[in-house]
């Protein structure tokens, strides 16, 4: 369903983006007396983007008409494979949530602890149930986090957030 109309969706979304871009650029003030101010390029780009988003959306709409249910285009074919191989978007969303949590808590809890937690949980999410070796994962996440932390702080001088310890 989504695969069938993917170009229509992305085209319409990009059209909205280009319209917002075009009108935001109206508020840019020219600080030089030059003919072409800071609003010129954004507006040109926004117009060209709008044209191509319509091209993409219309093309996608036509494609969805030509191949109503039959799966013969390469994209459709790929989608079919995905279903049989049981692709799921749930782990993607969980991973994203985990990454956001990791980044938000990083300055408060600190790199060392948060990275252990992140790597461990992310390994659990990515691995198949038959491959979950809890102790191995825990060991890898602790060793990795500690190595990165000390290497970057003391050898490469990247001041990673210390948080509650340090």
């Amino acid at each position, binding site marked *: 369903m989504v695969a069938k109309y*993917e*170009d229509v969706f*992305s085209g319409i979304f*990009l059209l909205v983006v280009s319209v917002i*871009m075009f009108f935001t650029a109206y508020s*840019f003030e*020219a*600080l*030089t007396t*030059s*003919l*072409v*101010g*800071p609003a010129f*390029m*954004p507006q040109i*780009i926004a117009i*060209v*983007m709008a044209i*191509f*988003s319509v*091209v*993409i959306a219309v*093309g996608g709409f036509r494609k969805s008409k030509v191949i109503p249910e039959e799966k013969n285009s390469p*994209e459709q074919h790929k989608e079919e494979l995905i279903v049989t*191989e049981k*692709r*799921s*978007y749930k*782990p*993607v969303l969980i991973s*994203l949530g985990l*990454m*956001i949590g990791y*980044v938000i808590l*990083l300055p408060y809890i600190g790199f060392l602890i948060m*990275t252990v937690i*992140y*790597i*461990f949980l*992310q*390994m659990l*999410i*990515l*691995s*198949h149930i*038959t*491959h979950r070796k809890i102790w191995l*994962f825990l060991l*890898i*996440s602790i060793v*990795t986090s500690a190595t*990165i932390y000390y290497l*970057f702080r003391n*050898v*490469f*001088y*990247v001041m*990673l*957030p210390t948080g509650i310890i340090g």
Partner: protein
Amino acid sequence: MFDMLFAGFGSVMTLQIIMLIAAGVALGLVFGSIPGLTATMAVAICLPITYGMDPIAGMSLLMGLYIGGVSGGLIPAILLKLPGTPSSIATTFDGYPMAQNGEAGKAFNYAIVSSFLGGLLSIIVLIMIAPPLGRVALQFGPFEFFAIVIFSLTLIASLSGDSLPKGIMAGLLGISFAMVGAAPIDAFPRFTYGFTDMNAGFNLLPVLIGLFALSEIFISAEKKVKKGLNAKLSKVNYKVSIKEYIAQGWNFLRSSLIGLGIGILPGIGGGTSNIIAYVAAKSSSKKPEEFGKGNPAGVVASESSNNAAVGGALVPLISLGIPGDTVTAMLLGGLVLHGLQPGPLLMQNSGDVVYGIFAALLIANVFMILFLFMGMKGFIRLLSIPQHILYPIILALCVVGAFGVNNRLFDVGALLFFGVLGYLMIKFGFPLTPLVLGFILGPLLETNLRRGLMLSQGDFMPFLTSPIAAAFLLVAAASVVFAIYSNHKKKKGTSVLNV
């Protein structure tokens, strides 16, 4: 020229830098050989390590990674029919059948030697043509530069990806993201929507790492792999006679030149060149029916062209400051990080670094052939490390890299944003390379346009009357027409790259 090159060798011939190059090649080979990890990722992760180094040392490490990353893909391509990187797709066509026929060692020999020679040839060409090209480019004013950037952008948009409108759209998106923050010339803050964090705009590194490394992690989260890769190589017989090498001479030369030419064109590199070189080898062969069944010529064509693309891609980066592919885009980020200004002035202001880069490339190429012949068993063993262990570690390193640019968490947020964007773009069938190149070239485009218009007092005509600018704009227009034509043809089912 030679005295500069000797000086370059002089500056990299320290124990520390030689070790860095060797480590870079080894790590690059590991990243290249594990499917799902790429040379782009290897460079992305190692950039933060170079923050504290001096420019020559840092760039030497990155050159090692580049050479190793492009070359490592041949291992799984021959053993498992899985290209380790897009650069080795065509290697699977004949390399895998050769391995099935019990000639894995022979296939490795052909692949490794042609990688080495293809790389060597392209580095020599790079050393010969980049400096004079840079000197010519010094004469360019804003009109010429504007035209060259337009030319590069149209090439990228039309050559990468399957759909022309989507390629162009990705390029436009890249230009748009580059507009966030202070405008060129008058520094008016644009598209910040009141967030002061956005005033400085998006840094190149989080954009690159997010698009190319993070998006892969999201893709891998979709599907859980039950079985790890299992490659075995019991007895290796590398033996290939001199006569057999000489028989591949012409094929090697043609493929290397294809790789070199494609590498020089902005936006496409080893990923495209190996397939085109393979098709060329097949169609000019007297026995095309033997291709795909284990013909060494297929392996030679693919592997010599993808390594030749390395030197080619560095030509526009060093002489013009325009990256030729995604890895060179990352290298451009590395140059900026070390306070070097990419562009025609690079050669003049930091000639020592440029010749250091040349010397590092030559040394890295030698390490590559040594490591591949001596350490093959080890690299094969590494193939079995599962992705669910590698990817979380890579993400942690990406976060360190993004954070380390400015010690700001905003950059880490940008990393996540571009990771999600990259994932969505892959899902909706948009190519990523035009976005990156648009992001890098957009500011150049606008600066030169506005500078040119200030110079001509608002007159657009000099953009067309300058002969060099007009020539580039003409070629740009021609490439768009050609892309529309081939796009149209492809829709009818006769793809240009039909293998």
